[in-house]
């Protein structure tokens, strides 16, 4: 850039500004234009996410019970840990911009390293959560085949080693589709319990069913789920995976660009006169943090 600038302009104007591209008059003009550009990009990011927030709002307005029930599958403590991790990474990023502005090269590289590590921790926690969803069968739309109830209660816990198919009693008023563990329509407990006895349910099943209900209320003693298990719970998980998945991709992209500016910082490319890429990557990283600030209460803390 320097050579281009020197060839096309008066050498004495830009000679001292190593990073000033030839089409800018001053470093401030270059910085302000770059910053406006990154803000415009961030608005498109916000609008992209707002499409998913809109889907969330419409479905939650129509089916609040689906969200109130399905969020019990999520571990709010893992969500809270990830929130703190991202907030801390936002601090180290903002601190890194300050370090770049003050020309503290070693501190800048260290802070960018911590920010990168925080992104890694976030994705590891996300991996643990996704793995649980995978093993519990609580995936999106047609892939929603829960093997467990929100308390982590398994088929075997409820129905014994034989599993649902063997042990689910035929209930007098139950439509054929109502099996607790079969497919997206998950409404086993919407059926009022038949009386125990020779004509109704076996005593063993009633006992297990009571154990299951107890389990459900034990998991979250403040807000036990008492109503029927709602239909179409898969809607929640479709939205959950789309929102957290898109956010996770943004975390990965953020980690890539942080790695890139960390490399450049270690070469000593940034200082008080030129720290634009650090600032702009930081702005992007903060937006990723802000999206999570909204996702956390909307997905994990429903009540």
């Amino acid at each position, binding site marked *: 850039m320097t050579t281009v600038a020197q060839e096309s302009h008066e050498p004495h104007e830009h000679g001292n500004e190593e990073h000033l591209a030839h089409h800018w008059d001053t470093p401030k003009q270059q910085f302000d234009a770059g910053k406006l550009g990154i803000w415009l990009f961030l608005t498109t990011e916000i609008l992209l996410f707002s499409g998913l927030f809109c889907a969330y709002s419409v479905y939650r307005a129509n089916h609040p019970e689906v969200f109130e029930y399905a969020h019990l599958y999520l571990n709010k403590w893992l969500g809270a840990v990830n929130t703190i991790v991202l907030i801390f990474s936002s601090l180290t990023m903002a601190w890194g911009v300050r370090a770049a502005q003050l020309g503290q090269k070693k501190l800048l590289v260290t802070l960018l390293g911590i920010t990168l590590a925080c992104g890694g921790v976030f994705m590891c926690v996300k991996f643990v959560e996704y793995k649980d969803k995978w093993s519990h069968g609580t995936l999106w739309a047609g892939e929603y085949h829960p093997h467990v109830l929100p308390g982590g209660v398994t088929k075997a816990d409820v129905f014994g080693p034989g599993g649902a198919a063997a042990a689910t009693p035929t209930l007098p008023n139950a439509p054929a589709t109502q099996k607790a563990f079969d497919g997206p329509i998950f409404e086993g407990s919407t059926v009022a319990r038949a009386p125990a006895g020779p004509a109704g349910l076996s005593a063993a099943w009633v006992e297990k069913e009571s154990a299951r209900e107890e389990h459900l209320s034990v998991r979250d003693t403040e807000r036990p789920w008492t109503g029927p298990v709602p239909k179409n719970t898969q809607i929640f998980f479709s939205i959950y995976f789309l929102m957290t998945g898109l956010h996770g991709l943004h975390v990965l992209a953020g980690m890539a660009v942080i790695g890139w500016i960390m490399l450049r910082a270690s070469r000593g490319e940034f200082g008080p006169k030129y720290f634009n890429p650090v600032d702009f990557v*930081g702005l992007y990283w903060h937006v990723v943090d802000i999206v999570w600030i909204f996702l956390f209460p909307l997905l994990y803390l429903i009540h």
Partner: protein
Amino acid sequence: MSTETHESHGVAHVMPMKVLINIFLALVVLTVVTVGATLFDFGPYNLYVAMAIAVVKASLVVLYFMHLRYDNPFNSIVFVGCLVFVSLFIGLSLTDTTQYQHKMNNLQAEKVAAPNVEKMHEGGGSHEEHGEPPAGKGSLGN
């Protein structure tokens, strides 16, 4: 040339360390508050309490971590303009979204057994009833 040094130092505002640490602590406290708020039931306002806390947290990040408070005001116009369009988008989508719910419930009811149709029609009118369906009856059909 004499102005150049001045300009490169004046390119952007340097955030004081104390402000950064205080904003971080405020964000951590607000995260604890939003988790703690789930222990209390504000009825229909639960969502609004959680969103209000999230908006405060996001504002702190935007104003201080993202320097918007000390930035070129034009960037604020761009950002607030974006928020206006987001609220139009979500707000207008929400205005009529519950209007068709009873029709969809009727449609679903036709697919299931016939005796369920009436019950679903009763329960499907307003989404208030969806919120807390009484155990054993209501919009879900049984």
